[in-house]
């Protein structure tokens, strides 16, 4: 057994709880790829001596993406629906040397947790949030999400979604955040590089990754084949270099703009605590 394990050792195996593989995600799901490249970013930063994995706190909320915490072999917490961000902030307040990564879905982050997202961004809180967007509440069977495209069928909008969706990444551009980027599962290397870069920054950092969910969202829009869904997304998810606010689109029928939307280096929350003198420097 030991030999076999060594022989087929995957580069990120030591960042996974291998006794939990195979995991709960459906065949064709994009979350595994996004998690993989997030962990690769950690791995590479570690090899470059830029991060200590023991200081990472990997927090997830509820949903398909939320299940990632159970798989990752770091300090992890799988907490309440929508509350991964405040949980991570609380831990950071208790131990500022922690590096919190919130990894959760669109329903969890932009839906029920929307208020926490807004205020963590407003504070330029020193956390990294990775939001996996599959356009639906998948774990509960395909209900309407705040990210679901207009007119699309969901189990709670059987006549079609009457609501325009939120462009979560774009909405954060109005706030004092240090990094906002959007990618899709068709840009795996970009995800890795983006996470890597974001982890070296201070303040609030947000990366949205458009995923594919052939089992639920694919069924809703009539593309159940994972390959076809992937190809469809590849046509929609267009990378633009330094797009302006008006350039950024979130429209499943034409374009979901990807790229780096915000990249700056304002003082993070903990820097400002020092600036006002609440905590001492160092």
């Amino acid at each position, binding site marked *: 057994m030991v030999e076999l394990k060594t022989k087929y050792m995957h580069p990120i195996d030591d960042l996974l709880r291998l006794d939990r593989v195979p995991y709960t995600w459906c065949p064709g799901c994009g979350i595994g790829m996004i998690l993989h490249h997030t962990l690769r970013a950690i791995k590479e930063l570690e090899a470059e001596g830029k991060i200590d994995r023991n200081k990472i706190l990997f*927090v997830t909320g509820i949903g398909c993406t939320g299940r990632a915490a159970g798989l990752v072999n770091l300090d*992890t917490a799988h907490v309440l629906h929508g509350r991964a961000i405040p949980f991570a902030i*609380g831990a950071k307040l208790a131990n500022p040397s922690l590096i919190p990564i919130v990894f959760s879905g669109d329903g969890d982050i932009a839906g029920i947790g929307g208020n926490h997202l807004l205020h963590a961004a407003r504070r330029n809180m020193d956390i990294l949030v990775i939001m996996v967007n599959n356009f639906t509440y998948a774990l509960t069977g395909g209900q309407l999400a705040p990210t679901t495209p207009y007119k699309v069928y969901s189990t709670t909008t059987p006549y079609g979604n009457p609501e325009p969706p939120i462009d979560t990444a774009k909405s954060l551009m109005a706030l004092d955040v240090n990094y906002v980027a959007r990618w899709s599962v068709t840009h795996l290397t970009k995800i890795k590089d983006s996470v890597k870069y974001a982890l070296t920054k201070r303040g609030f950092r947000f990366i949205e990754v458009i995923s594919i969910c052939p089992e639920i969202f694919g069924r809703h829009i009539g593309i159940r084949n994972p390959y076809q869904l992937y190809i469809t997304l590849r046509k929609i998810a267009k990378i633009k270099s330094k797009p302006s606010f008006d350039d950024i689109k979130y429209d499943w029928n034409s374009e979901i703009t990807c790229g780096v939307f915000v990249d700056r280096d304002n003082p993070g929350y903990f820097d400002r605590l020092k600036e006002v003198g609440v905590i001492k420097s160092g």
Partner: protein
Amino acid sequence: MRVEFLSSNEASAEGAIAAGLKVYIGYPITPSSDLFEYLAEKLPKYGGIVYQAEDEIASINALVGAALAGAKAMTATSGPGFSLMQEGIGLAIMLEAPLVIVSDMRTGPSTGIATQIGQGDIMQARWGSHGPYNLVAYAPASAQEAFDYTVKAFNTAVKLRIPVIVLMDAILAHTREKVIVREPGEIEVVDFKKTKKPPGEYKPYEPDPEDLIPPMAFFGEGYKILHESLAHDERGYYKTSPEVYRPLVERFIEKVERNKSYVVASKEYYTEDAEVLFIAIGSVARSTLALVRDLRRSGIKVGLFRPISIWPFDEDKFINIARRVKKIVVAEMNQGQLIWIIKKILWDNRIFNVEVYSLPLLLPDLPSPDEIYDEIKNRGWKLW
């Protein structure tokens, strides 16, 4: 040790500092905000941090994160905020996060009368979150007790790895009186029980067979902890089997039961020869005690039992008194919550020869001793 003139909110804040508070997270709400304000000014001087969250839901969830990262953590709130925190209290139970929640009870339901006293959080404190669990709630009745039982709340929380509630009320919260503020060397301060196992061997939910409490390791120490809000085994792995679920939740209940003697507290007044026993908590108990003294002066044999730990109740002490008295009157500023506990204890112990009267005081103001007397008289009860 120093003597101060403090409100109960401030005394509670001082108790928290003495107990080692490091992270306070709150959201403004009357009548608890001045506890927050007091700590905002003072806690940073003790190396702690105070954080204003965007709502009470964020407060409680951030507290759980702070506690599991190794800080003694606390919040203060009131009815509406306490209601919002209930799901997070369940998270603290499930993740066995030690933390303290002060709830300054006010008039309800809903926004009620924000500045006025109520005692409607008694049942909410115990049963507000879904699922089977156990926790501890203390109800002080003076600024001194606000100090003492905030310290005790931290000790209990840390010892049992549970959230502990301190139930005060709007009147008590702002009652200003003499408080002896003791320093850590002069009072018991319980520290987190850390694991002695190295990373790799440590399991976050493996209980110590002695007291059923899992030793702690904090985030950031290399233990690769998995904290899981789903039902989990000792490693934190989600499991749906009855073999995992049942012992887990039974342990949540049993760990408080087993340590009951450490937890429970109560006070009794004039109970030795009492024929009529009043039961009340917080400010109402102080008004009731004055009434008891008035009645005693008229030669009426009345007494007062004042539970301090409401959850769990100081059952043994209460039963001893209950066996001796003829009548019990439960005075409380809600529609009758404490009385459910009293009736259950009497029933469980087969004490049937005592008449039990519920005296719900649905008033927006703390009744004076005379007003409590009138409430009894108006109901036409013949208690003495």
